[in-house]
């Protein structure tokens, strides 16, 4: 079987602007959890946009499940930096939005949305409006919305960046727990080395100006991962290694 997502010599620039991504090559297998980490401006988020087909590539090829991204769009879901909920809709209706846009029947829509809300532990908040939720809860709704379409690939662009550390750790564990039930492949952009190591089985360290894939770090910690994982020596040495790598990448930029 071909890789689920494949980048081959991919280049990206916006208009006549400078090169954002320079000859990116990688192949993501089914079930991979890939963390993208690197200094600001290294094009991490741009990689997600290219997979989602939200922005055209300037060179090379991107294939998603053997297709060009535009055709694979039904297999993808995006979780943004901000929860980006529709404030005028209840939690339940927000989760239903993607289903509604893809003309799912309304009874089935409600059913699927309820299941996804249960998955993120927010069934009791179904009839709340977004403004009545905490930051962490909003992010959970955003994840439930992404899951409503049962995507094969989940693209997460620093989803927990604005949350406090406790909430972030907790949501990381939840995210992995959900993945045990729904086996999607994930691309996860983050600034946090600890988060990257905890979640992923592969870390892509990128350098900036132009964005290049500097190094890939395999994370050999066994799943399921829990709070104990964070205490393990292997986890801590990986965090130290990746931090060092990231610092050296950032130093080279200066």
């Amino acid at each position, binding site marked *: 079987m071909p890789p689920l997502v494949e980048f081959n010599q991919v280049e990206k620039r916006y208009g006549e602007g400078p090169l954002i991504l320079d000859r990116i090559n990688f192949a993501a297998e089914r079930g991979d959890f890939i963390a993208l980490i690197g200094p600001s401006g290294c094009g991490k988020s741009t990689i997600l946009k290219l997979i*989602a*087909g*939200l922005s055209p590539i300037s060179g090379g090829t991107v294939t998603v499940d053997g297709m060009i991204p535009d055709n694979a*769009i*039904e297999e*993808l*879901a*995006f979780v*943004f*930096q*901000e929860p*980006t909920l*529709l*404030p*005028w*809709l209840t939690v339940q209706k927000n989760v239903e*939005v*993607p289903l*509604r*846009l*893809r003309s799912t029947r309304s009874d089935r829509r409600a059913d699927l949305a309820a299941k996804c809300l249960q998955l993120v532990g927010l069934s009791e908040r179904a009839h709340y*409006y*977004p*403004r009545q939720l905490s930051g962490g809860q909003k992010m959970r709704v955003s994840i439930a919305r992404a899951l409503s*379409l049962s995507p094969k690939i989940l693209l997460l662009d620093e989803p927990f960046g604005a949350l406090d550390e406790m909430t972030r750790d907790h949501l990381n564990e939840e995210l992995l727990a959900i993945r045990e039930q729904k086996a999607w492949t994930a691309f996860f952009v983050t600034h946090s080395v600890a988060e990257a190591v905890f979640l992923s089985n592969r870390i892509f360290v990128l350098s900036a100006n132009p964005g290049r894939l500097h190094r890939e770090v395999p994370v050999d910690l066994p799943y399921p991962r829990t709070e104990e994982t964070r205490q393990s020596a292997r986890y801590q040495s990986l965090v130290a290694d990746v931090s060092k790598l990231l610092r050296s990448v950032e130093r080279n930029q200066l």
Partner: protein
Amino acid sequence: MSKSLLSRTLPLFTGVLFIALWYLANAMLSSERKFLLPPPHLILQAFHDQGPSLWSAAMNTLRGAFLGFSLAVTGSFVVALILSLTPLVRASLYPYLMIMQMTPIIVIAPILILWAGPGLVSVTVITFLICFFPMVVNTTQGLISTDRNLVDLFRMCKATKKQEIFLLRVPAALPYFFTGLRIAATLAPIGAIVGDFYAGNSAGGQGGLGFLTIIYSSQFKMPALFATAVTSCALGFLFASAVIALSWLSMHKWHDSYSRTDS
């Protein structure tokens, strides 16, 4: 005194103080100049004496204001939808909207009278012209300010253009729409009165508050003029409260401006 009690009695107190100062000012005027500032009870008397004409004038003005306002709301919504389509459309239409806004009503009124004759049609058009611009500017701004990520989300879900507009852009523009609506609501009665002043129909019972102003001022009926001013205020208040109520109905459940957190 508790804070809420204070905040409730204070406006009442300022009102009483204002009326007292009014009487004081009236008492200080020499007897031949007292007519310039009629005391409140004479204005109430004028309400009683001029009741029927004030009422019928207010109804005529209300009709023009409501028609012009409604046309401006619907028209501006359609125009804003068109303007929101592309920057190119905006660039090609905005200058003309600006020109329309900058032409003084006083200049337009005589042209309108020649076109449509004095009366309801001219008053409605003038109200429309005054209300239209703030509505169209605010609504367009709302329609093009949709969160970029939400637009991406809709595109990833293969939303049609129609879905993108009516499920996303229009509801997201509601707070902007209501900002425009509040401005237009306070302008509508003013527009109708100004319109009536310049292009109202003076024939039997068709005049509005603008026309009444002309009559009373030519007769030096100061208390009646003040009564007309109060009536105009009441009309403005009516429009503003209707819009505030409508805005509350459509947004209090979800919009931050209605949240009860006291920060």
